[in-house]
């Protein structure tokens, strides 16, 4: 599978990465060569094989829905880059045109 520049731009947009022109070319080449290596999986017949998503064998581990002590709000809020009146502040979401 060979990736072109448009596909790389699409992926960067999905992944929210602001990659440079130089990186677009680099990633197109590198991802293509990695994907080519992956193609060897097509040698294996997987008809009727159930996909395996986790290996511990645990299923549906439940807990009581009870109120408990959690992390200190002060410590958690201290990590926020921009805070105003204990609320997380970000730049505007919509541009007016």
């Amino acid at each position, binding site marked *: 599978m060979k990736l072109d520049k448009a596909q*790389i731009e699409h992926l960067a947009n999905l*992944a*929210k*990465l602001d990659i440079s022109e130089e990186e677009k070319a680099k990633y197109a080449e*590198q991802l293509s060569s990695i994907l080519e290596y992956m193609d060897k*999986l097509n040698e294996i017949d997987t008809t009727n094989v159930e996909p395996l998503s986790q290996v*511990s064998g645990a299923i549906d581990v439940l807990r009581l829905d009870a109120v408990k002590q959690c992390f200190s709000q002060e410590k958690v809020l201290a*990590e926020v880059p921009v805070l105003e009146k204990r609320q997380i502040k*970000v730049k*505007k979401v919509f541009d007016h045109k």
Partner: protein
Amino acid sequence: MELNKLTIEEAHRGLKSKDFSAVELTEACFDSIRKQDEKLNAFITITEDKALIQAEKVDSKIKNSHQDLNVLEGIPVAIKDNILVQDVKCTAGSKILESYVATYDATVIEKLKIAGSIIVGKTNMDEFAMGSSGETSNYGPTKNPIDLTRVPGGSSSGSTVSVASHESIFALGTDTGGSVRLPASFCGVVGFKPSYGSISRHGVIAMASSFDQVGVLSKTVKDSAYVYEALAGIDKFDSTTKKHKINVLENIDQDIKGKRIGLPKEFFIEGMDPAVRDVVTSTVKKLEALGAEVVEVSLPRTKYALAIYYILVPAEVSSNMARFDGVRYGYRAESANLLEMYLKTRQQGFGDEVRRRIMLGTYVLSSGYYDAYYKKAQQVRRLIQQDFEEVFKTVDLLLTPTSPTTAFALGEKSKDPLTMYLADVFTVSVNVAGLPAMVLPAGLVNKLPVGVQLIGKQFDEPTLFNIAQQLEKKL
């Protein structure tokens, strides 16, 4: 006596018989860090003040009470910087967390603190554990203490080097595809990766959640056993943890006559350094001398393990890394609007390898490619797990090389990602199937360490530790 060179067992005996104090032991480690770490770069953060306060507490307990001393009590430990220690900076080797201070203790840290271990600092690592050489860290590469021009292996590069160069008595790392075992092999220490579901990952920064497991770097097999017993067990904060037999010390000294060890022929491939192969062969002879029966076995789908690993891991990475957006914690880039903030924060905050894996993972999960890559890889994952189950019907343990080569030169593989990924070719299968495995230093090739890998049945850590312990005496 150089206290920092002791094992957990020796240090424990010395503390108990008051040959030296916990403060002296801890200071010996910090002296070693001060002397060497500028060139090794194993640590990102040193926690000397906190460590000495803890050591004093242990000393006063030894002096004033007749309570038994826990085996890990007063023992200096280094922690990989993707494991949260409350009120200590936790970077995961990334710029995006360069000033992040952990708000709580990971479960493994809570357990170490209860056991009384002394945390000396947080160790350098490949960014978010993505790398096999220790070179993708935002804080500069860690160097191999045996040869400073070579890589120590990754991603638990700093933790491994801190043990190999006696800056700590033991260390915690994490292992998603070999990140404890590969550096253990390259630096000549014992590296243990438990079964998936054995040790809680609560408070460990996730890379690929269906593979990640906390592991131990130590100087001996027995030291690793002490740490494993202290850390393993069910945790309500990690629903993958399962109940199983954790007592590995009980039978560790049993002889191994009649144990069956399998050599999977697919692990002895073309392109392997013949001198490394010789080390494995001589290890086989030692196992036979101990009375074990060594047989050739087959894991036919081994050659596909790396391909499915590098599909499933980036997929999980792309999803786990989505939380780093500059909103609630970590680095935030200057921007005019919210979308630009996401784009610039992630572009500037993540390094090259992390971005490459996010892109790759986004691709294999994207509409139209999901079935061809992600689902296909999950199906082959089941087949590989079945191969192991089949083989463990006839043997107790597997023995393989850890890497086709010894430690490679800094910069040698960092230009081409696929070449770097191939360094994990012998270690990833273990994580694909969720098995326990241990790397033991088995010999030297041109003065560089070579580790052999022992692979156990899922949740059969007792057999793994038993055979490893008996083999270690002959290595």
